[in-house]
Each structure stands twice: as C-alpha cells, then as structure tokens.
C-alpha cells in the first residue's frame, strides 16, 4: 500500500508517495529517479547500493523505505554538492586520478563508503581503509587503486586543513 515518505535527500526536503514495503534502494531508483545508487545483489552482500543515512553508510537495499521518514539521506548524486552543484568531490576526483574506476558499477557505493570512512576517521591507515571498504565488492580492480584513492584523499585533506590552520595563525 502507498504511503507518504518525507525526508531530507541530498540536502533538500522531499516528499514522495510510494509503497511502504519497498527498500530505500527501490525508492531512490524507481520513485526518485536517482539511478546512481546501484543494485548488485539486493541482500546486503555487495555494497553497490550504499548511501549515507544520518551520516552513516548503510546498504539501501536493507533499509525499508518508510524507515527514512524524518531522516537524512545522501546518495552519490549529493556527495559533490558541498563543493558547488554536482561538481566532483575531491574523493570522486581521486578515484578517477588513481585508476580506481573501471566498469564503474561498484564505484558510487565505494565512494560513499570511502567518504563515510574519512568522516569518522580522517587519517586512516591502509589496513583501516581496507577494513572500511570490506563491505563493497568490486570485480574489476582488485581494490588496490581504490585504497590508493582514499589514502591520497585523506592526505590531501589533512594538508588542506593544515594550510588552513597555518593561514589562520598568520592572520
């Protein structure tokens, strides 16, 4: 049966009528036309459908759509927005630069997982990055360059933060 679902999606309030029995993944893809979030297995085993729910990464295939009522969801389409509308975030750019993208199907989920990791742990070790993306299957890359991209993004962010702090001190 249809139900009304109200939540914050990529920073904007949305209201959508949709069946209450579907997953957040189907809600995003079939009812909100956000197809950047991918379905790989629909049982929480591949991470292709990863989104941020209240800032934490979850498999959207394992979230019941009405569960997001009143909560905040960020999808791959919303990730770059903080740096201007739909521009690539530094992490997304690093994925391209370091060769972390091949067929690209797992990429949105991995970018989301990488971003969630960096938000909770800004300077992860390589082992922590590997742990952080263990829920995302990739069949093309062997993960090495994905870990590189996340690692380099962490370093660049730390550098920027330092420069920012140094500039403040100078002021």
């Amino acid at each position: 049966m249809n139900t009304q679902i109200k939540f914050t999606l990529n920073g904007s309030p949305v209201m959508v009528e949709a069946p209450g029995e579907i997953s957040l993944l189907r809600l995003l893809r079939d009812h909100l036309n956000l197809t950047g979030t991918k379905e790989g297995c629909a049982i929480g085993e591949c991470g292709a459908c990863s989104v941020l729910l209240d800032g934490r990464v979850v498999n959207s295939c394992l979230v019941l759509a009405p569960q997001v009522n009143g909560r905040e969801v960020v999808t791959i389409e919303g990730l770059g927005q903080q740096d201007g509308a739909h521009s690539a975030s530094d992490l997304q750019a690093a994925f391209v630069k370091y060769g972390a993208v091949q067929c690209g199907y797992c990429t949105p989920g991995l970018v989301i997982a990488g971003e969630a990791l960096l938000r909770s742990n800004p300077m992860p070790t390589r082992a922590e990055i590997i742990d952080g993306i263990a829920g995302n299957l990739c069949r093309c890359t062997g993960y090495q360059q994905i870990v590189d991209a996340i690692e380099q993004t962490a370093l660049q962010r730390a550098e920027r933060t330092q420069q920012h702090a140094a500039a403040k001190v100078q002021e």
Partner: protein
Amino acid sequence: MNSFGYVRADSVEEAVALLNAPGLTSRVLAGGTDLMVAVRAGETSFDRVVDISMIPALRRIEMNGARLRIGAAVTFSEIMRHPLILQGARFLADATHSVRTMQVTNAATLGGNVANAAAAADTPPVLVCLDAEAIIATPQGEHGSAPLWERAPVASLLRGHLKHAIPAGGLLIAFEFDPLVPETRNTFLKLGRRNALTISRINIAATGRQDNAGAIADVRLVAGACFSRPRRAHEVEAMLRGQPPSAALFAEAGQLMMRLMVQETGQRWSTEYKSRALAAMVEEALENVLPLHPEMATEAVRESMR
C-alpha cells in the same frame, strides 16, 4: 509482493502496545539486515512492522550497578568501539567487528542478532559465554499497554536455528552481564570462507583465568554454528578446571568438543570437516585464553587472526 504497514515506536511502552495491537500480526524491525532479506525472499507472516530502532532507551551502553548493560537496539558499530565493552568484554567487540562490513554493522543490532537466532550468528555465543541475561518487556494490561519487565538468560532464549523463546508480543530491551575482570582472558574465533562478508562456519567464544600456580581457575567455552544452539560446553569446562594448561589437555578438550557436536547434531554432510575444524579451533581458543606461556600477549594472537 507482501503487503504490510510500517510504524515507528518512540518508546518501549508504545512499541509493546503496537506489537500487541489486536487484529494485526506485528513484527519487530530493528536494523533490518535480516528482515529485509526475508521480505525479499517472500516472507509473509506479518502485516505490520514496528520500527524500534529509534527508541532512545534501547540505544544505550551503560553500567547498571556492577553490571554492563547494552540496549537491544545498539548497533554493532557502536559496540565494537565502546570503551566499556573494549574493557569489560573485548570479545563481544571482536564478534561484532568480525562482520567486517560498515554497511551492516551500522544497521545490525545486538537484539536483532539474538532475536533472529541464526545458528551462525556471531554475538549469541559471546553473550552465552558471558552468562548474559536478556531484559524483555512483555505485554500486560489492555493490549500490552503496561508492559512487564522480565529477565531471562540469553541461553534460554535460543531454541535452535531461527527459533527463539522470546514471549509472544515481547520486546528485547537490553542485555546485562558482569564485565570480565582484567585477569580473565577472552577470545572470539571465527572460521569463514573469506575474511569479510562471511557467514561463520564455526565460531568460538571463550574466557579463561589461571590461578597463581598457573592452573585453570575458570574457563568458559561456547561454540556457534555447530551445535543446535549456542550453549556453554560444561562437559569440556569441567574437564579443564583445576588442571594445568597443556597442549595435550587442550587437544583432549578439542576431541571432547568434537564428540559432543556429533552426539548432538548427528552426522551431516559437513560433519567430516566441521568436527575436525572445531577440535582445532577449541585448541586454539584455549591457548589464547589459557596461554601455556602467559607472557605471550593476547593482542598478538588477535593480530595473527586478522
């Protein structure tokens, strides 16, 4: 598609009332990691889910007097990082971390892991090893509006694969146990087919304490995914207690555990493998918690297991 409604509870009282609303078959929704899979597979035994994941009272980790108390809707991610748990029940943190998947640990709850009662679940053996008690709100009064709070050992709630003994209309509220004293070592071992995103073929939770002379003062051992339900291996524990640890003794313990498994579950397609692997894992778990050379740090062992 199965048709069902959704309702979110803001308090335990509301949740119990909703679960016991007449004319509806309601089901608890916590992390969703098991329920959503079941729904997709055609599960149709309910017509409403009651979302309890946002109830503040179920989301706390705290000391209740001398007892450590973990709310039923606390997520695996919260458990694996919480200082009280790292200090008082490190192997519970290890068990939640063994899922190795942020997407799942951010959603999955301790209560859900117990209530789903999967044979291969990772936290129930640890809770049983800790002799943890579950606190359950059971319906009383009109439509359960004034729930009664009961206690029951976690072990008594687990009745076999996907079977639990939580009273109808009841809701898991929290788990309580005595935190381990620093002298008690603990370990969680997991055998899966890969290092992440893997179902346990066998898992083991164990604690051990040696007296000043080095003899085994206390030992607890629980194996998951190979008995009909997780339970303390009292037979093995009794055999070990009071003995000085030795490789031969642990090998004997492993053999006994293996016989218990075969006795209890009979010969299955996997028995030829699992019985041998179980014996080896028991030996390893015992070495971790009752080191032959106590100077060997538990940390090093943990690292070697990844």
